């Protein structure tokens, strides 16, 4: 995977799925869903996100339900999620919708919001200013799913999906 460079948005600890994807999203038209991301904790944020931005958070990012929270972030244009720790279910959902979610120890405390950073996948490091932090890379089969744009694309390509219900 190529490097991702983007402008950062900073969030705190325990950002949960219900903040990222509020209950009402379930029955909204697809294009409206992402605009409700974080409306309870950070009203107005969703409309400020630009394509390619990077979300940086504290501990336990994405804790909560199996709802497609990562989809909301991807559709807003978030290119990558970096957090001190990432909830396991959220990590899977991020990979399966085609965005990397990485645990990067120390990341939350070294950045200011709006800093431009680069996630270098080949070397497994995040570059900020002239400094770096390293991270444990995702297994290569997960990076493959991300590069294919998510698991649905993979299933389609394999001919495993059928007619609408």
């Amino acid at each position, binding site marked *: 995977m190529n490097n991702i460079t983007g402008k950062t948005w900073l969030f705190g600890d*325990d950002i*949960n799925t*219900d*903040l990222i994807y*509020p*209950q009402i999203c*379930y*029955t909204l038209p*697809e294009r409206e869903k992402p605009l409700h991301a974080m409306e*309870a*904790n950070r009203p107005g944020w969703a409309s400020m996100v630009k394509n390619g931005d990077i979300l940086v958070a504290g*501990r*336990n990012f994405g*804790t*909560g*339900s*199996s*709802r*497609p929270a*990562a989809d909301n972030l991807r559709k807003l244009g978030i290119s990558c999620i970096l957090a001190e*720790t*990432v*909830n*396991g*279910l959220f990590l*899977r*959902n991020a990979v*399966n*919708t085609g965005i990397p979610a990485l645990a990067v120890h120390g990341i939350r405390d070294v950045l200011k919001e709006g800093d431009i950073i680069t996630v270098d996948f080949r070397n497994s490091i995040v570059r900020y200013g002239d400094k770096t932090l390293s991270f444990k890379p995702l*297994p290569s*089969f997960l990076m493959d799913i991300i590069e294919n744009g*998510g*698991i*649905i694309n*993979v*299933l*389609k390509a*394999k*001919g*495993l*999906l*059928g007619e*609408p*219900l």
Partner: protein
Amino acid sequence: MNIIEKILFNHSVEPVKTISPGDIATVNVDRAIIVDMAALHPEFVDNPPLKPFDPDKISLVFDHYVPAPSIEIANRVNRLRKLVSRWGIRDFYDTGRGGISHVLGGELGWFRPGSLVANTDSHTVATGAFNTLGRGLGTPELMNIIATGKTWFIVGETVKVKFSNRMRKGSSAKDVFFNLASITGDIPGKNVEFAGSGIKSMGMDERSSISTMCAELSAEFAVFPFDGILKEYMENAGVSRYKAVEPDNDAAYADEVEIDMASVEPMVAMPDRIINNIKPVSELGRVNIDVAVVGSCANGRLSDIRDVAEVLRGKKIDRNVRLTVTPASRKIYEEANRLGYINTIVEANGLVTNPTCGACLGGHMGVVADDDTVISSTTRNFRGRMGSSKAHIYLGSARTVAISALNGYIKGDLNE
């Protein structure tokens, strides 16, 4: 290997020598459960898997929206019903038949000791009470499992939690969990394995309550050992073919936590989250409530409904409180009815609903309003979880909810 590693080992697609933290386990899944929420995922209803890896290992359970609360949802779940004939699924539980998947699956023997279960709902970790590994997964990922019968896990480290002694009357499994949560905090990527002599004093309801709530720690799995109580439960469920799993003598754990259950007192999670947000009720001060809810996969079980009925028998709830009680399954509902619990709650001015997730997810059956203060035995109190994001949601045991409903403010009691 510990229990978790061993179950993954037993399900490994490729033969491996051992399983330890950091490994990636590719595993066969014994059962995949789809709940009605899948109907709200366009990718699922628009392009469902062509055919399942084994229709007898697929369950379809309607639980979150039972009965459908809007035309939109009624239409969407109707599309899901078409799966039953298209795939030839036997295990379909429509409204009125089943209950919340994490409870129903135990009742029906889907959670066989030593087995591995995948479900579209995040509280699938509930299966751990049955010595079963269960993981909640996103709907797209479950589609992959339905099509292939396989999935993967990045194996995490395991925290061993040892229970000793037994709970005092008046405290409950939810309080034991809160105690655990206040010790461990969040543990994303890690597992919990329970041990210790205290387990034998807990029935399947109590164990299930604790394993279910471990979703809130961000745990991957939270598994109980196999013992006589589980054996008897499986016998009564008519299940005899399974391979229970015990830890090896040299099993490795990252950490060990001891909980003396006799020292656990009633506790609550303060609004908005559980992690780093637990308080003993005795230190809470006076918090008046508007709404009291008993229900959910964690604490809408028969023992919870019994606790509520015991507290409310012959009394009326506070005139300012709205109490909703939602049994977690039809079986629980029938039993509670037979034992007179439902009548007792109705006579106390409580509202008893049909089995569903209901108020727990803020979808229907008791959506809460701006500025409502809520005490609930459900699983989560994220802001906005049960309706308005301006509501204040406290979580407690079913008993604490009932005592609070009587008094009009949050109260737990070791003697009541």
